[in-house]
């Protein structure tokens, strides 16, 4: 059986991966004890929402503005990771990779950037590096839905499987009536 095209597997989930990048980062940036009325960095916030809506160009434009106006390290890291995801949507993988690298240079425990970079590496066919980043993301956020999706994308590239359903109507020995 011929496997599905790698591009056809990755394309839809790449977009999912980027869209699941934190949209709330801006509003979470100020720490748990401070009351925030609305996002502190509206451009970053709306940029993330544009990415969630699948609008790569607008998402990148706003996120770049958000990065310029970032007031703390958390916002900058979040913006760079989101830009990484945004440029994947725009199919500018080298720029995406550069932003992911910057995000991880800012914070080497930022799992979203590892997850996004793993997707970039998959897209670039650099599967060993993708595996390394995915392991990092899993170590930091094992239960994150995005990380699980990226793992499945990588598995679909390295170990594709086809579903098979077996329907067995044979009477089992223990089938004798229990009702």
């Amino acid at each position: 059986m011929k496997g599905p095209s790698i591009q056809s597997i990755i394309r839809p989930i790449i977009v999912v991966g980027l869209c699941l990048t934190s949209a709330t980062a801006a509003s979470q940036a100020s720490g748990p004890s401070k009351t925030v009325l609305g996002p502190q960095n509206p451009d970053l916030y709306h940029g993330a929402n544009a990415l969630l809506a699948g609008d790569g160009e607008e998402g990148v434009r706003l996120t770049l503005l958000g990065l310029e106006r970032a007031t703390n390290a958390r916002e900058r890291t979040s913006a760079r990771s989101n830009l990484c995801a945004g440029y994947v949507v725009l199919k500018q993988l080298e720029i995406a990779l550069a932003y992911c690298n910057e995000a991880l240079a800012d914070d080497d425990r930022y799992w979203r950037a590892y997850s996004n970079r793993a997707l970039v590496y998959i897209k670039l066919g650099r599967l060993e590096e993708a595996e390394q980043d995915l392991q990092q993301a899993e170590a930091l956020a094992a239960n994150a839905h995005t990380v699980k999706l990226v793992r499945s994308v990588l598995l679909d590239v390295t170990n594709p499987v086809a579903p098979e359903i077996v329907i067995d109507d044979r009477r089992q020995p223990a089938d004798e009536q229990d009702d």
Partner: protein
Amino acid sequence: MNKMIRNRRTLLLLALLIPGLALRADDVPMVKYTLDDSGDRMPLHTVVPAYPEKARRARVEGEVEVCFKVDHFGRTSRVAVRRSTNRVFEKPARDAVRHSTYYPLPDGQKLSGIKTCRTFRFLLTPVEVEVPDS
């Protein structure tokens, strides 16, 4: 606010995965069917359950046994899971049985009252890897 964003993410995820699935011809499962012709009812229309995408992504296989009654007209009822290795497979298996039918009984023949059971095995078969052009 966070709940709203989570909901939006879920919606987006679904919207993106559905067209994505359409791209994957290999997601149409291969089906093997073992019929038991020793029973008093013969299947007419057998619905094949879909392989749950969540399970496929996580490389989870499993087995579900569903028991049910078949009425005079061949419709299934009282569908219940008797045994399963993973809950993710139960709903597709139940739904498949609910939408399956059997040949009606000939006039004058009485229902036996015996439950019918059907076992579904959800398996994943490795497929050939297509190496992309660099």
